[in-house]
């Protein structure tokens, strides 16, 4: 069972994403902010991370860097809404492997996760 860490401060998004993944055979761990994400990453060692890029307090980019510090091989895809292209590019430079657009289409998310895990 591949394990995915889903990080988003919006409860509804988190829930939908988790449901989609568990319906498709993945194990899901949730985190609602950057700090929580780092803690959960250390705790559960997921196979991949879906990381929202705009979160309060610690934003996705910073969280990404922190997660990569914990695990330089971490496989992270950023989750983003429209209009954040340069942030995504920064994220890719900081090690994000891909990105998924909100509101997400199920098959795209699943494809991205599959690609992440490799």
């Amino acid at each position, binding site marked *: 069972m591949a394990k995915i860490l889903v990080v988003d401060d919006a409860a*509804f*998004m988190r829930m939908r994403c988790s449901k989609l993944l568990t319906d498709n055979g993945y194990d899901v761990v949730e985190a609602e902010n950057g700090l929580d994400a780092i803690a959960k990453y250390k705790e559960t060692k997921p196979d991949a991370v879906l990381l929202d890029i*705009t979160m309060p*307090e*610690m934003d996705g980019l910073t969280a990404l860097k922190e997660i990569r510090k914990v695990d330089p091989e971490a496989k992270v895809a950023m989750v983003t809404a429209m209009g954040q292209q340069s942030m995504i590019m920064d994220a*890719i430079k900081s090690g994000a492997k891909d990105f998924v657009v909100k509101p997400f289409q199920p098959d795209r998310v699943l494809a991205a996760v599959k690609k992440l895990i490799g």
Partner: protein
Amino acid sequence: MAQMQFDATEDDIKVWLAEADEQIELLQNDVIRLEKDYSDESLVQGIFRAAHTLKGSSAMIGHTRMAELTHAMESVFGMVREGKLTPTTEIVDSLLAGVDGLNALREEVVTKEQSDVDLSPSVAALRDIVEQGGGTFARMPGQPPAAGGQEPGAGGQAGPAPTTGSLLERFPLEPDEIEAVKATLESGAMVWLLEVDFQPDSLWLAVRSFQSLNDLSNVGELLKTKPTSEEVEAEKVGPKLQAVIAGAAEAAEAITKTAVVIEDVVNTSLTPYTLESLSPSPAAAGEGRGEGAQGEDHPHPSPLPPAGEGTELIPSQTKPPAEAGQRVATASRVVQNVRVDVERLDNLMNPVGELVIDRNRLQQLALQLETELGAHDAVDALNETSQHVGRITDELQEEVMRIRMQPIESVFNKFPRLVRDLAGKLGKKVDFIIEGKETELDRSVIEKIDDPIIHLLRNAIDHGLEMPEERRAAGKPESGTIKLSAWHEENHIVIAVQDDGRGMDPAKLKASAVSKKIITQEVADRMDDRAAVELIFAAGFSTAAKTTDVSGRGVGMDIVRANIEKLSGFVTIETAVGRGTRFLVKLPLTLAIIRALLVALAGRKFAIPMATVMETLRFDAQDVRTIKTHEAIQLRGRILPLVSLRDLLRLPALLYPAPGEPASASPEDEDGDAASNGASQGMRDVGDAEGDSMMEMGNRPRRQKMFVVAVRVGDRQMGLQVDALVGETEIVIKPLSRFLGDVRGIAGVTILGDGQVAIICDIPSLINRVVQEQLLA
């Protein structure tokens, strides 16, 4: 009404609503502050986030109109956040209209019925604001395609067919670049021209190009690209990416695969360079084509359908503000919040209330046993246990109360908008100040307090404040000030509504009351100013010739006061002609459990909330004075009017005795009854056998003892004569059953430690009754 379908289960919708309501509430509270506080970064950021999150989640469930509206609002907020737009009154009005729209849209999710509300004017207005501010209004991506997905068509929207033209025609190279390629070829490696076509209307071209270049550099060497990496990072991109890439022969497959798996790619082609094709004179078109034909051509449809992204414009402000990225939380602890159904909080209160009653009971039983058995191990153990239970119950009660306490902010937040709209309608200028919104009170009170406050606010704006010209003429600032404040006082919360308007004129009020036949002229003449001001609380009173539609649907101040008293609170007025008026509303912090003084009356027990009790008194009948047909006594230099509580409650001399009690006229020595550890503060003569049950007032033997509870509401004081004083205890207020409805003078009932039912007196309304009766006598 059109039915609506959302891409969410009922459970999903519950979660969605909980979150959406948070965002909408924030927007409702904070958008109005934008006019003054737009430079407050955290305020603007919070507003932006709320719109952003709401946009995302409404799009997720397929609520297109809501997503559109929130998207438009988010765009405006984004510009404010970046300092590109300053919120004027008109802009804030448009945003507030948007917030109103959100409420209607939110309802649609609940009812699954499309409402008639037309949001296109709001959305258009917001779009205009964005464009006037120099921004570009990016359209929302269209609805995600239905589950089946929408193949763009194999090789469908491809750009120019990559096979036409020679390599150098397709991708011109400088002479030195050509040399570099040749040199690489001569060293034995291969060089290809990779051409990638993206979905032209994708909104993510820059990132996809960036991703491509990034990933490609891992599988080959990029000699030249168009657009260049600098251009890509600056988002100067188009739907086509070309790259001259070098690598070992085996790399070809990896290169193609890498390019193809990037999202939004509709077409890739990989064509190898040969030394011949790089010769100075470009080969004939045919040869080029031939070359092309030999190349590895992968007119792939992307493995996945691109997002059904709608139209056109790429957002021009994509740079997020610098500060958003830098703030890292310094706290190392994550604060967990739990969402609790409000109904559960209510359900928590009941068992706790019952526990309090049982605790009292236990204590009483322990005492009883001790009396009967004397010293005994079991009695000691019971005592200890009952004390422990007492402590735990106290703790539990405190915790539950604390959980139920909420800052009054949630009530106060509705008001700025209300005041603004009302002032606008009436042509008045208002400075609205709120203080003490963090003051906490019990949830049950919070729900019921907003109506009275709204009325007081409406009153202040409509009747209190003068029109700007009148104020100017009076030497006052044109803007009237209305201050809404809240604070704690002992066990109460006090809410004040104050205005600096024209104040209330006792003479005018009296005249109006007389002309409305509420009081006679003689009574009016006798009345002091304070009583005159309280005339506004009389039923049927209203100084306005007609009630303006804004000032309430004919609801008078009498209803306002009655509602406040229903909450076991009371309201008082301070006013000065020409200077202003202040209404003070005092409410208990919780309606559930209070300390009360138990008294005996007509053979039964009654409870008087300690909050109203000043002290208890015992004196001889001869000390009673009679002042103008009303009885009173002198208390430390002041006159305290006396009233028989039995008469006030219209009780017969003796109520039907409680089961198990002897039908005796005078109350027995009821010592120890519910007197808990807290008995006798300010109390004298617990359980004195002498009572006053059968004697009529004014008809007593001179040495007859009288027991009086001195109570106070606001600055009105009164002595309530009772048969006997019993003790002080904590009681759980239970409402009268709904079959009985409202009984004036009674706030509820409680069950005492001995199982008896005691009636709780509603002191404020009883005092009012006395005042009315004495006035009209």
